[in-house]
Every structure is written in C-alpha cells, then in structure tokens.
C-alpha cells in the first residue's frame, strides 16, 4: 500500500481484529483500517482509501530468479528455522477469538481453504488451490475482459497469476508452455525467442477463503460454488 492520503504520510500498527483479519491503526488520527483493502473503516479517516499494490509470496531463490537485482529489508528480529514456511494445514480450525469478530461466514467454500483471489475494478474471483491443482496446475481465465493465467509454482505450490495473451497452457516437467509461444521457467516468462518478458500481474492475494469472502462478498469462485 501507499500510506499517503492527500500528500500526508500516515504511520501504522496492527492493533486488533475485525472479520477475522488484522485491523490497522494509524498513529496520526487513531483511525482503524482494513489491512487488505486499505480502507479506513472507522475514525476520522473513515472512507479514505490507500492505493494498494501486490504483495507476493516466494522463496529467496524464486525472487532471485525473477528479480536478480531485488533488495531485501531485514529487521533485527531472529529468523526462526531459517524462515522456511510451515505447510498450510487445510483442516486447521478458525480460532474462536477470530470467529467472534465475524458476523456471518460465506459457506460456499470451507472456512480455512486456501486459494488466490484476483480482483480489479469490476470483478473479484477466488481460485481455490484445489481447483488449480485439479486443472493440472494451471488455469486460463477471463478477468474482467483480460485473459489471466493462474498457476501453482512447481517448486513451492504457491498460486500466482499474470496477464497473458495465451488461450491454453500445459506443463512440460517444471516448464509451463503457453500457446502464444511464451514459456514460464523458474518463475520467469520467456518469449518464443528465449528473451525474458516482464509479466504484468493483476491484484492478487494468497489467502484463506473466509478472509477473502468477507472482504469480497460478491466474489465469484472458479472451481464450483
């Protein structure tokens, strides 16, 4: 997000919970903000909205392949177990404390299901990881008039999406080949001549179903209702 409203920079902390997700608090006005949508929910800034950008999850190796010049900010906190991610437990239950902040869950999908939500000004779509997996690890879909590829990174299983001109794709070992001649290897897109191509990504969020559905009650679901 860009923490600037009308030219003034605001400073944030995570101070609470609402709808099962973090509530941000700004030290300038004490307003409460949704930590994903960037919208002020209560307080003097209510209704203000910060511009949002993508926040992608990847290993350092994946990041180096895709962005060799990337810089990383490291705080003074210890990094436990080298910072490797614990496997996501689908059957985990939602903590009752979190549940107490939720009015009504959307029961179209299991509460703790994981997936990736994509959105633009017109449409919001949730792609459960299970649905992507059932489609052999890649889906081509229409997102508000633009074609988008959603795939599971073969190294980590993380769902990622980018805009494409292709109409179909299939895996060849760990390479994803598209029918427009492009190919994805190690998270990097190459054109038919083997040159790197910068991908353009829709806004996307790797998240559990309940958090996504509460933020976007009008969401469509790819892979069954």
């Amino acid at each position, binding site marked *: 997000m860009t923490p600037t409203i009308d030219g003034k920079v605001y400073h944030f902390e995570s101070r609470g919970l609402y709808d099962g997700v973090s509530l941000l608090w700004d030290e300038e006005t004490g307003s409460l903000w949704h930590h994903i949508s960037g919208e002020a929910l209560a307080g003097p800034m209510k209704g203000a909205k910060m511009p949002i950008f993508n926040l992608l999850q990847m290993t350092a190796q994946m990041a180096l392949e895709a962005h060799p010049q990337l810089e990383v*900010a490291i705080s003074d906190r210890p990094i436990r177990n080298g910072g490797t991610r614990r496997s996501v437990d689908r059957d985990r239950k939602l903590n009752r404390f979190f549940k107490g902040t939720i009015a009504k869950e959307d029961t179209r999908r299991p509460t703790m299901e994981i997936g990736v939500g994509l959105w633009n000004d017109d449409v919001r779509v949730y792609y459960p990881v299970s649905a992507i997996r059932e489609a052999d690890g890649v889906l081509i879909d229409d997102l508000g008039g633009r074609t988008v590829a959603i795939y599971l990174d073969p190294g980590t299983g993380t769902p990622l999406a980018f805009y494409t001109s292709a109409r179909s794709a299939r895996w060849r070992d760990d390479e994803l080949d598209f029918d427009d001649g492009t190919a994805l290897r190690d998270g990097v897109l190459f054109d038919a001549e083997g040159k790197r191509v910068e991908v353009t990504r829709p806004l996307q969020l790797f998240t559990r179903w309940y958090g996504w559905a509460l933020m976007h009650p009008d969401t469509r679901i790819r892979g069954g209702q």
Partner: protein
Amino acid sequence: MYERHARPMSFRAVCSVVSLLAAGGAQLAAQTSQTAESLEFDPDRAYVSEKTIFVPFHVVDADIHPLRAAVDDGLIQSDTWLLVMENNAGRLGLVMDQMAYHHVAQGELRGEPWMVSF
C-alpha cells in the same frame, strides 16, 4: 496471541482515546477522497488494543541489502520465504518470518512511501 499479549477491548471502549488522538481529524477527513461505498463497520465485533501489540518495522537504509548478497553472506537462506512488495517505484523483499512478528513494515523506496501489512 491477542488473548495472551493484549487486553482486547471493543471499539466503542477506545473511542475516547481515538477522539483525543484525532484532534483536527474532521478537517483531515474533509480533505480526503471518500470511496463510493465504504464498508459497513460494526464496532461491536471489532477488537482493538489500546497499546502497541506488534512493533512495526520502520525500514531505514541500513536495513536494506541486495538479496544476492544477503543469501551469499548467510543472512537468509535460499529457501527463506519472502514477501515481495511491488509499487510504482519498484520492488522490495521482506522476510515473511519477521513480518509474522511485526505485521506492519513501512518505509520509502526511491522516495515513494510504502507500507506492507501481513
């Protein structure tokens, strides 16, 4: 974690604190563009701590390293999970495990303010 480290209170209970902090807030709000449809907020379902729970990461230049060097020097491992923030000024990685502590990181990238919440 909230139950153990914080004393959560309903949003209504902290309204007075918010009001004090928000001196001049009405003017600020008036200057701010409003979204077409603000989310309906139910204060009775919100839990808000009156004190800092998670210390945010205020990123300064000294905290920033080339990722290649950070891996080569053993500051992080090649399989360390990162959050990669993208904005109009470029990209920056953050260590996911550290963000699970801070929850919020904030700084400037090539002069452009950014904030990440996780």
